[in-house]
C-alpha cells in the first residue's frame, strides 16, 4: 500500500474501532445496533481500500441493509415499555483480562510479523471473483446454497416453536 492509502486505512480504521467499542460497551441496545451499523460501514470502506470492491458492496447490502434491519426488528418486536431491559450487571474481570491478553498478543504478533506490502491491485475484481466462484470454489458456492436452505428451515422451526 502506498503512503496515502495506508493513511486513509488508518483513519477509517480508527472510526471502525471506536464505533465497535461503543457498540460493545453501551448499555442501550438501540445505540449499540446503530453503532454496529457505523462500524460495518467503516469496514466496508476498508474492504474497498483493499481493492475488494465487490465484497465492500456486499457488506453494505447484507450487513447494513440486512443484519442491522433484522436486529432492529428483533429489538422492536421484543420491546417492553420505556426502556429496553438490559438485565443484570455485566461480568468484567476474567473475561476482560482474557480479551486484553488475546488482543495484546495478536497486536504484538502482527507488529513482529513483518509482512511485505501488497503489490498493485488487479484492475477488474468482479470477473476474477466470478471465475473463482465457478472454478475452484464451486463446491463452496453450492455449499452456501445448502447453508442458506438450512438457515431458513432452522430459523423458521425456532420461530414456530414459540407459537404453540
Amino acid at each position: 500500500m502506498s503512503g496515502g492509502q495506508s493513511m486513509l486505512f488508518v483513519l477509517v480504521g480508527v472510526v471502525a474501532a471506536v464505533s465497535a467499542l461503543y457498540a460493545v460497551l453501551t448499555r442501550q441496545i438501540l445505540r449499540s445496533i446503530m453503532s454496529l451499523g457505523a462500524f460495518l460501514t467503516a469496514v466496508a470502506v476498508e474492504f474497498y481500500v483493499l481493492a475488494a470492491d465487490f465484497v465492500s458492496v456486499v457488506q453494505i447490502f447484507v450487513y447494513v441493509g440486512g443484519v442491522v434491519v433484522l436486529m432492529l426488528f428483533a429489538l422492536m418486536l421484543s420491546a417492553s415499555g420505556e426502556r429496553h431491559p438490559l438485565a443484570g450487571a455485566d461480568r468484567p474481570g476474567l473475561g476482560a483480562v482474557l480479551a486484553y491478553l488475546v488482543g495484546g498478543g495478536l497486536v504484538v504478533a502482527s507488529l513482529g510479523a513483518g509482512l511485505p506490502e501488497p503489490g498493485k491491485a488487479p484492475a477488474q475484481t468482479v470477473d476474477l471473483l466470478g471465475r473463482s466462484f465457478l472454478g475452484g470454489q464451486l463446491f463452496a458456492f453450492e455449499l452456501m446454497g445448502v447453508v442458506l436452505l438450512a438457515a431458513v428451515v432452522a430459523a423458521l422451526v425456532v420461530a414456530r416453536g414459540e407459537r404453540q
Partner: protein
Amino acid sequence: MNDPYQSDVVFLLGFALAVFALPVFTILVFRWLRPSRPERLKREPYESGMPQASVPRRPFHMAYYNFALVFIVFEVETLLLFAIAPVLRDQGWAALAEVGIFVVLVALGLFYAWRKGALVWR
C-alpha cells in the same frame, strides 16, 4: 494516488460527507430563524386528538420477524448470483446448470417457508 479503488473511496467519502452535512447544516441554520414554542400538549404523540391509549413500545407479533428472516437469506442468495452473473455469458451450459442447482436449493427454502405459512401477513 493512481490506485483506482482508493480514488473511488475518497470520492465517495467526499460525496457522502456533503450529502450528510448539508441537510444537518440547513437544520442548524434555520434553528435561529424558526419559532420554537414547545408546549406540553404540542409535544404529546398524535392519537386522533385523544390521550395516548397504549404504549407503542410493546412486544409485537413474531410474524413480522419471519419476513425479515426469509429476506436476509434471499438477499445473500441474490448477491451470490450477482458475483457470478457477469462471467456467466462465456461459460456455457455447464456453468448454467451449476447455477441452476443453486437456484433450486434456494427455491426449496422458499417452498418450505411457503408451506409452513411463514409468508402470511397478520
